[in-house]
């Protein structure tokens, strides 16, 4: 299935450490010039996958192809990929200029050409003024920009980034996210970016591959992952979500009626794959799709009775945490009329309601998936 437009192809890539399967048969194609993020919690296999692409780790099975040809067995220094590490990993005894010149120098590029090229790259990351400094004399953000420059100076066909911003504080992180995004627009390098931060993934990537337990659960752009999560893990890992558990009562072509635990409330949901009558089902609602009302809404929408545990005025919205009678917790982000949250205070009885088509249903789920709420 080799495609000329693919920069990188992973097919059936597996990595075992003894009995433990870190990466479990991954298939992934990355197009030329694409910005793809490997997103997942720690230990989900995303970093191991990146290290196999770089050549520091080797698949137990499967194939890694760069530009159509297999690189299994090719050492990292012969793969012509660039890499930015979590802890900068600059050469401490060299100046910024020598750090950036290093990849060209080991390639035997003539001295004058190295000078030109390093100057260009320094300009690209806006570090001209720091060329003579040692890494220890720079701030964290500047060091990571040097690392970026060092990885870009030899124009690698593939740029790998392993949680490059996780050591920086929030403000600097956002600044560098914008810079990386802008850089990707200017140079046409394919970027594979690893992070556990879903917001960072959404901000940067063309496409996101969500990892869980060594497998890719879903690949798609951020909007698709948010609006059509394939399973409960993706639903809980990307964005905020509220979960309810119930049992399928009746099933028809258009949807299904679900009796929630406790047996008192019935809601309707679009039909999902793999459900049967009488089987348990997991329902999910996004906080911004739900409303909190005092009176019972009309029967066309789904509604659940609850008690307000927390009501917080946040300027453009009011954020509620509502406890249901069955002990579930619902998040609601109400942006309808945030100026008048007068009646619905802590401890008040209320109804949480949402449209049938905003209900997501999953036939299979792991209990820890729904506690996987994004940090």
């Amino acid at each position, binding site marked *: 299935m080799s495609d000329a437009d693919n920069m990188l192809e992973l097919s059936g890539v597996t990595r075992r450490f003894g009995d433990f399967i870190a990466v479990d048969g991954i298939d992934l194609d990355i197009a030329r010039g694409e910005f793809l993020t490997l997103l997942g919690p720690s230990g989900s296999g995303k970093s191991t996958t990146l290290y196999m692409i770089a050549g520091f780790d080797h698949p137990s099975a499967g194939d890694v192809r760069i530009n159509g040809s297999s690189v299994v067995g090719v050492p990292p220094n012969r793969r012509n990929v660039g890499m930015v590490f979590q802890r900068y990993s600059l050469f401490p005894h060299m100046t910024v200029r020598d750090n950036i010149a290093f990849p060209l120098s080991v390639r035997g590029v003539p001295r004058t050409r190295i000078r030109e090229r390093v100057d260009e790259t320094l300009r690209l990351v806006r570090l001209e003024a720091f060329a003579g400094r040692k890494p*220890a004399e720079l701030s964290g953000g500047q060091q990571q920009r040097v690392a970026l420059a060092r990885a870009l100076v030899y124009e690698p066909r593939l740029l790998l980034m392993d949680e490059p911003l996780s050591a920086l504080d929030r403000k600097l992180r956002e600044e560098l996210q914008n810079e990386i995004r802008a850089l990707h627009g200017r140079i046409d390098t394919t970027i594979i970016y690893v992070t556990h931060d879903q917001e960072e993934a959404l901000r940067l990537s063309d496409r996101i591959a969500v990892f869980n337990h060594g497998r890719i659960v879903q690949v798609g752009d951020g909007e698709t992952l948010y609006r059509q999560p394939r399973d409960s893990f993706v639903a809980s890992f990307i964005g905020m979500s509220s979960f309810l558990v119930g049992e399928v009562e009746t099933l028809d072509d258009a949807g299904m009626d679900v009796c929630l635990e406790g047996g008192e409330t019935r809601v309707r949901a679009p039909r999902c794959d793999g459900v049967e009558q009488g089987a348990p089902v997991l329902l999910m609602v996004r906080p911004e799709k739900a409303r909190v009302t005092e009176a019972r809404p009309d029967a066309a929408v789904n509604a659940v009775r609850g008690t307000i545990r927390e009501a917080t005025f946040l300027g453009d919205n009011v954020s509620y945490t509502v406890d249901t009678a069955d002990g579930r917790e619902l998040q609601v982000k109400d942006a309808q009329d945030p100026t008048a949250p007068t009646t619905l205070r802590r401890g008040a009885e209320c109804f949480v309601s949402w449209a049938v088509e905003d209900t997501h249903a999953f036939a299979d789920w792991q209990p820890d998936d729904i506690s996987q709420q994004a940090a």
Partner: protein
Amino acid sequence: MLLDFRSMGGFRYVLYTVTGAIMAFLILPILFIVALSFGSSRWLQFPPPEWTLRWYRELFERSDWLDAIITSLQVGVCVTALSLLLGVPAAFAVVRGRFPGRDLLNAFFTTPLIVPLVIIGIAIYGLYLSWGLAGTFIGFVLGHLILAIPFAVITTSNALRSFDESIEKAAIVCGATRAQALWRVTLPGIRSGIVAGGLFSFLISWDEVVLAIFMSSASVQTLPVKMWSALRLDLSPIIAAAASLLVLLTVVLLALVAIVQNYGQARAAQRKEEPLH
């Protein structure tokens, strides 16, 4: 803070006195011998009746003393080179290696620091007699090497442990071969540890006397051995001059170690205070 210096009141002066006394205790014998080396008395009279440089002149003019100094330097340089040549790869094995018995090997490399010198001396004496190495130049070098290697291994492996391995990986992914990454990135990165190991190796050899006594011969003598035998034959102030020379070189080398290890940090700290534009 409980032990804040300013809140101590009068007790502070007690602290000054005790600290001063300890320093005096440590340094007085050395000052004493240095003073004697400049004294004019043939019989090491103290305080010296007059000052002179005569003993230093004799030290460098008499061929038996000069030979001992040169031998000591030669042995020291050979020990330093061999100690690093063996110690640095050993440190890599102990820090980066993944093999059974690695921690045992690490402990093994430090045993010469724990085993009493006299025991090593006796062992070497017996071995060298049967191998014909007793009192030879090679014999000195190998004997001192036993004592020096632990220092090379310890300082290098400490530096290597604090050197982030992903820096070496970064060099490789940049296109460097393993050898290039090692030579151009890792070794310079742990330079201060290697230099310290080398200087310590030299110093161990430079003032080593116990092992040397067990195998000295008339033909090859290091400076400490020459002093030891001179001490037993006649009590000349040249010994004091030689001793001062030993101390001087030791102090200079130790200062060098301190400077090498602090230079990078001090420079970085200073540059960080400058405005960043």
